[in-house]
């Protein structure tokens, strides 16, 4: 296992280094082969590792390669930890990652930074694998900050545009705020429990209840709000859409942003001990899910809609975590990876066809021109809306059932967020693919379906989005919930649904009816009534304006954090440095000069005066030493 895991992680790194250093001199074909090949090979090896893991009795494989950071009691190895949880994650990362690499070959074909792009993308896969395979919090953190770096590099990939650069910088800094929480949690963890390694922390009796546990869980969650874009650190994700669209699919939908969920599940030993932390997670994520869904209903940029949708869906996953439904959330991570990656890649295909246009007000009627994109996106839209038997239905339903058992108010919030999801997704679908084309006749002639290298990944993902629910069929149907059982051994306190069958059926019915009603409403608005989003912001009602402007949170942060910080910097620099400290130093030197001047006046050059002074001094000294 040791060498397989090492290869899984290192292959993308090697690909990244080759393309990073030599890429410019290689043909685009070769660059594409190296990049996709390394991830594809990683996927094959991940499958082998997955199969091998099933042979191991407790399904845990811990491998140490060498001692990384060592100081007294602190002994962090560089090593990997493959268990049920990470085995699922590596399959998703390398599997979906492979498809997106293939797709990127087509999408980025014209770009002059082709090899640089693949070098970054491979590097991302490397760090993402480090994140989920590391066998301690510190090695998880390597991946954690590493993916943040790659996200920075890829959001600002087109670095000539300073809006993109600002978005990249914002993502990095907001993530760093969360990362500080992660670091502080690690320091507390070590100081209280003596280790950061999973193998030690999972030892029974090591992590026991104390107020520190709550603090650790909350600080870790702060880290998660950064990486997984939850309130208050979510505002970077919509801006992150500045990056190439396949990047949005891979990093900002399918994998990196779900790292927070991975981390909380991995830390369930802490969370299950702290009800406070669980409640904080549940409340914050519930609000985020609703908040982002509301914003998504009034966006015009196809990628922005999907970005807010991602924030909302991530909120839903955390909502499940807050209810203790760890495996349900992981289930949703996986199905979401399928359909959200598909939605982004589909959006990329639309943007590709539209020659770079992202505004859905200028689209419409595209279904005839780009049918494959349309059909695959339709499947994804149905899946995310929670219509059975598509994958999103099962995972979302499972989460909501657990939340219902825990807290009815949060359940209601979850249901409303889900209904909004169905609404804004179908709004997007109708406005993009149905009706008539609004982009002008010139552009209409140029509309074309994407090449096979882009459509095949769409088709594969569409199949997965459709059937992904098989991973976790509800027990209600008399079937076995595979993923729920598979993850059992990594979860300390399991949460089993205690609801009666009737209640479960009713909940399911409410969810489906809600989604159906939302779709019908969207259909009425955008198809039957042919309503179009207003062209001009001025025509919006005030509450629509507030939503369109994302509740002015960016402006709020700008005025309460960035500007005061810069002001403080100016005060330090202009006043303290240049006036106060300079003044003190100059004051001291001026005083010294003055004293020197004064002493010089005593040195008048008269020998008799000196002799007298000397005599008096000697007498004084003799008297004193007596």
């Amino acid at each position: 296992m040791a060498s397989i895991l090492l290869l899984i992680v290192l292959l993308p790194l090697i690909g990244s280094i080759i393309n990073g250093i030599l890429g410019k001199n290689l043909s685009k074909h070769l660059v594409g082969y190296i990049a996709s090949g390394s991830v594809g090979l990683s996927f094959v090896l991940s499958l082998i590792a997955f199969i091998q893991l099933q042979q191991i009795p407790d399904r845990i494989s811990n491998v140490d390669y060498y001692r990384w950071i060592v100081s007294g009691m602190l002994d962090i190895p560089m090593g990997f930890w493959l268990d049920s949880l990470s085995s699922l994650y590596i399959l998703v990362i390398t599997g979906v990652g492979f498809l997106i690499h293939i797709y990127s070959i087509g999408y980025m074909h014209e770009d002059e930074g082709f090899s640089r792009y693949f070098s970054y993308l491979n590097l991302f896969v490397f760090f993402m694998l480090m994140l989920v395979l590391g066998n301690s919090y510190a090695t998880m953190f390597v991946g954690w900050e590493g993916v943040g770096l790659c996200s920075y590099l890829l959001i600002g990939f087109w670095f000539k545009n300073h809006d993109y650069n600002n978005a990249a910088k914002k993502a990095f800094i907001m993530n760093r705020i969360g990362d500080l929480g992660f670091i502080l949690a690690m320091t507390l963890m070590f100081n209280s429990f003596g280790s950061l390694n999973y193998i030690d922390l999972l030892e029974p009796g090591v992590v026991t209840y104390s107020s520190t546990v709550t603090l650790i869980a909350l600080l870790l969650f702060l880290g998660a709000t950064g990486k997984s874009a939850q309130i208050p650190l979510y505002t970077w994700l919509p801006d992150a859409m500045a990056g190439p669209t396949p990047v949005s699919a891979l990093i900002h939908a399918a994998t990196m942003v779900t790292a927070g969920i991975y981390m909380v599940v991995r830390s369930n030993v802490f969370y299950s001990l702290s009800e406070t932390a669980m409640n904080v997670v549940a409340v914050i994520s519930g609000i985020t899910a609703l908040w982002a869904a509301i914003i998504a209903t009034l966006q015009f940029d196809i990628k922005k809609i999907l970005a807010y949708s991602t924030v909302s869906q991530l909120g839903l996953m955390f909502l499940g975590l807050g209810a203790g439904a760890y495996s349900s959330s992981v289930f949703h991570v996986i199905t979401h990876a399928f359909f959200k990656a598909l939605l982004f890649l589909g959006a990329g295909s639309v943007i590709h066809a539209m020659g770079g246009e992202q505004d859905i007000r200028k689209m419409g009627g595209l279904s005839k021109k780009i049918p494959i994109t349309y059909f695959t996106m339709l499947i994804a839209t149905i899946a995310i809306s929670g219509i059975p038997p598509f994958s999103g239905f099962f995972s979302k339903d499972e989460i909501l059932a657990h939340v219902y058992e825990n807290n009815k108010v949060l359940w209601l919030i979850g249901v409303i967020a889900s209904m909004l999801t169905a609404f804004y997704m179908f709004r997007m679908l109708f406005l993009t693919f149905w009706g008539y084309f609004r982009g002008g006749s010139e552009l209409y002639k140029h509309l074309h379906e994407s090449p096979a290298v882009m459509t095949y990944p769409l088709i594969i993902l569409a199949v997965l989005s459709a059937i992904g629910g098989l991973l976790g069929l509800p027990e209600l149907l008399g079937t076995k919930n595979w993923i729920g059982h598979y993850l059992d051994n990594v979860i300390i306190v399991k949460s089993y649904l205690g609801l009666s069958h009737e209640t479960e059926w009713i909940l399911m019915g409410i969810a489906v009816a809600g989604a159906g009603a939302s779709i019908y409403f969207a259909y009425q608005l955008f198809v039957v009534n042919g309503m179009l989003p207003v062209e001009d912001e001025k025509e919006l009602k005030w509450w629509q304006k507030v939503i369109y402007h994302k509740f002015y949170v960016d402006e709020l942060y700008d005025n309460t954090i960035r500007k005061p910080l810069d002001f403080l910097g100016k005060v330090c620099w202009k006043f303290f440095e240049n006036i106060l400290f300079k003044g003190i130093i100059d004051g001291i030197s001026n005083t010294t000069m003055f004293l020197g001047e004064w002493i010089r006046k005593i040195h008048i050059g008269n020998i008799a005066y000196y002799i007298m002074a000397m005599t008096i001094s000697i007498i004084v000294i003799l008297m004193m030493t007596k």
Partner: protein
Amino acid sequence: MIGNILILIPLIGFFALLTPAFRSNARRYALFFVGIEFLVALIGYFLNYSANNNAFLLKVDYNWINAINAHWHLHLTGVSLSLALLNALIFVVIFLSVEKNQYGEKSYLFYALGLLMQMAMMGVFLTKDAFSFYVFWELALIPIYLIGLMWGAEGKEKITLQFFLYTFFGSIFMLAAFIYLYQHTALLNEQGRKSWDILDFYQAGKLLTPTQQTIVFWMLFLGFAVKIPIFPLHSWQPDTYTNMPIQGTMMLSGLMLKMGLYGLMFWLMPVVPYAANEWKNVTLLLSITGVIYASLNALVQTDFKRLLAYASMAHVGLIAAGILAFNKQTFDGAATQMFAHGVYVAGLFYIVHLFEKHTGTRLISQLGGIRNLNGQFSNLFLIILLGSIALPLTHGFAGEFLILTGISKIGLMWAVIAGLSVILGAVYMLRAYQKMMLGDVVKTNYTFGALDKKDKWSLFLIVFFILFLGIYPQALNLFTSLNINEILK
């Protein structure tokens, strides 16, 4: 023995370069001397794996000045080894960075002074005898003062004088405290024999009353804090760093301030541990205030060199806080971070040098879009930058992480405030990077052609150390950690 050689090589180099025969080819000879020095330091490093720690190769101890019982006592081990290696490494980079004609007719003099400085710092890091420690300490000040005075920018006379007086003022207190401790070593044996030995100082310090310890503590603190610098004794630093020729800045930030940190670590904390613990809250407050204060100043700088001066002050403030927090993790972290900081800060100032060399300016507002002109330079700059903001798998991460872990042991709030520098560091560095490197090309009269071979390889060397030690920090920690266990006993 290796220690002797390490001091001897730059000393020979110093004298050699002053003789007319070597002047014409000064650069080549200077590089030869620092190159050999680096090789010897590497040999010393690898000998630590195999040789007995007290073997003659690594440790020498002769009577030197019998009248005051001063010894010539060098020990190439632990943190001393790590800093000696750093000293040897950074001088290779510093000398490589020098451009033809940068120092005009008198370039031999620059190289000679540099070698003298290297020799003095080697002495500071290696000696275990307070008397020679002080001699080397003051000796190191002279060449850097002259370099600033001769080749500094506008206003150099005032700034170098201020620098000289400020740090000299600090060292006087250090000397007084050393003499005081020296007197007390007489109590350690029947014969009343006094000693400058570091271990005797550790013993003598423990015999002092709490009040005496406190006085010694603050006197030594003053001496070391000015050099580092710790807030509010820093006001010489930004001006001096900015005014020095770039190689001088690299010497100051990469190496010379490590003298202060090293002093804090080995010549202060273990000497008067009682007072060190007693005053921990005050000293931590000062150093951590400095971290935040310097970071805030860095946010608004327009000159990249001055920005780095403040960034460096923030980073070393954190190292100082680590040392003052005085536990195993913070000491290990500080030892790690001293090396890491030396490497990346030299790299960052090298970048400043390249900006000036290629574009003629280092003002952030006048630069932009350089990534379009030279991708390799941008990538190297970015890696060094990431090293400076302590991304995992760079050496700085191991250091900062250990320091924060140890500081949070004292109190989580300390770690929270110190940790803010993690965020602020990313803010000011990425802002500057974006403005200078990204965006479209600024329409000015500069180009940014391919890097010279010497510059490229210097940066490769820096990047290699940042990444290699980030992936495998044990390469140094293996030795420094043992050393630290001894003083924390």
